[in-house]
């Protein structure tokens, strides 16, 4: 027998990468390939989740993630609806638990939630019978983003193990960074984080990664650079002196890449990009940039996750 006919997927929720085993991540990556093939068919839709109802509860702004989840749900033939915080009872002061309990009373099978507070998805999972997917909780985790990032890396470079991946930008406030570090470490990559000292959490090296405040060090030997969005509101709080100062030291441009990095370094960004700040125009649109492919892969990754959680025992 070359491969077993059955798998045992037991996870009911996807709350963070931290709790996934490398084998589970591997299954998600394999299934993502299957769903990527579905998306290339003349009719890019399968009946796998027919009759299931999914709610997307987004209490923070989002274009990419929400559209990606909605599309993944439609491609799997689930019925879904999306609730944005601004137009929901959140603004009337209803608690998160009350909101999800009410949503569940309408017989939802899965809840996709984005929330400004770390741990929100965990809290919801404790209170409902539905499967819960974390679509970003505060500064904690954004598991599907990390999964689509490592899928894209594997697709482009053929592997993850042994690669040098540098994450550059605001590490401290980034759930994308945290989920990526977990995913990359579990899959055997060497991770370096780089940014202004004030934007790097203390003791983060305990996750088994290299920390540097020098962009040259971060780019040297890197196979992949994942550039994070600089949240402009952070600067107002004095975490770095000025945008100009940030761009000078940490901005990724054609020029810095030519000077410090391997020629074929893969450029990634979770979006939305502040063009000309963390990433220059020419670097964002260069031929080694896979930013739009990340977005394409996002739909397939989310289909894989929804499919697996729905079949969990």
């Amino acid at each position: 027998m070359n491969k077993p006919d059955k798998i045992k997927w037991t996870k009911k929720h996807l709350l963070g990468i931290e709790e996934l085993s490398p084998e589970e991540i591997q299954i998600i990556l394999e299934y993502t390939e299957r769903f990527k093939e579905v998306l290339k068919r003349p009719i890019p839709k399968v009946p796998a989740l027919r009759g299931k109802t999914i709610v997307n509860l987004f209490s923070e702004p989002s274009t990419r993630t929400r559209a990606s989840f909605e599309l993944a749900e439609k491609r799997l033939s689930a019925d879904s609806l999306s609730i944005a915080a601004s137009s929901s009872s959140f603004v009337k002061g209803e608690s998160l638990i009350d909101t999800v309990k009410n949503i569940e009373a309408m017989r939802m099978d899965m809840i996709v939630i984005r929330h400004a507070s770390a741990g929100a998805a965990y809290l919801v999972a404790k209170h409902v019978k539905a499967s819960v997917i974390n679509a970003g909780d505060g500064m904690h985790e954004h598991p599907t983003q990390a999964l689509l990032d490592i899928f894209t890396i594997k697709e482009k470079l053929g592997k993850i193990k042994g690669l040098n991946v540098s994450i550059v930008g605001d590490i401290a406030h980034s759930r994308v960074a945290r989920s990526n570090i977990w995913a990359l470490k579990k899959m055997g990559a060497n991770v370096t984080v780089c940014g202004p000292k004030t934007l790097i959490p203390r003791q983060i090296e305990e996750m088994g990664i290299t920390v540097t405040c020098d962009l040259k060090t971060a780019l040297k030997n890197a196979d992949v650079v994942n550039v994070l969005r600089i949240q402009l509101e952070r600067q107002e709080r004095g975490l770095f002196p000025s945008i100009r100062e940030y761009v000078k030291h940490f901005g990724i441009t054609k020029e810095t890449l030519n000077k410090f990095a391997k020629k074929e370094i893969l450029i990634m960004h979770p979006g939305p990009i502040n063009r000309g700040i963390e990433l220059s125009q020419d670097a964002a649109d260069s031929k080694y940039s896979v930013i739009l492919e990340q977005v394409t892969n996002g739909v397939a990754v989310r289909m894989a996750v929804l499919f697996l959680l729905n079949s969990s025992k």
Partner: protein
Amino acid sequence: MKKFKIKSKALDEAGIKRTLMRISHEILEKIEGKEELAIVGIRTRGAYLAERIAKNIKEIEKKEVPVGALDITMYRDDLTEIAEQPVLHATDIDFDITGKRIILVDDVLFTGRTVRCALVELIDFGRPASIQLAVLVDRGHRELPIRPDFVGKNIPTARSENVEVRIRETDNIEEVVILE
């Protein structure tokens, strides 16, 4: 889960080979529009049998036939009922099926539910001129109005029994056995 033991052997290696060759000849004999012929196997074992039939046809006709493999897991209607999840294998159809005369291949025809899924999935790839069904074994007990066009061997079975087609690619042996 019930433990099965072998009751009898229905086909051995030579038997499987002979049967597949006969099916290949029958397909060529009966199909209208040989130029549009294409073979699609249902994973796992049907896909390997499809490749063998395509190889036979190539030997007979000296012409390449397009072959594809279909994984029906995403189309199954019993995913929430079964105890273990089946592995999602790759579906691989790299030719346009529109206008093709498709021979759908599976190892064992039983309730007909797998074939139903395969038909629904196949049609999502395009509009073939026709789809016909070839199976190595028909063991009866249909639950849907589905019948095979090419049958290797009819094996009457009790519902409680099981028929297993074991082939080199997946099982390291070539035989068809009835289990009870």
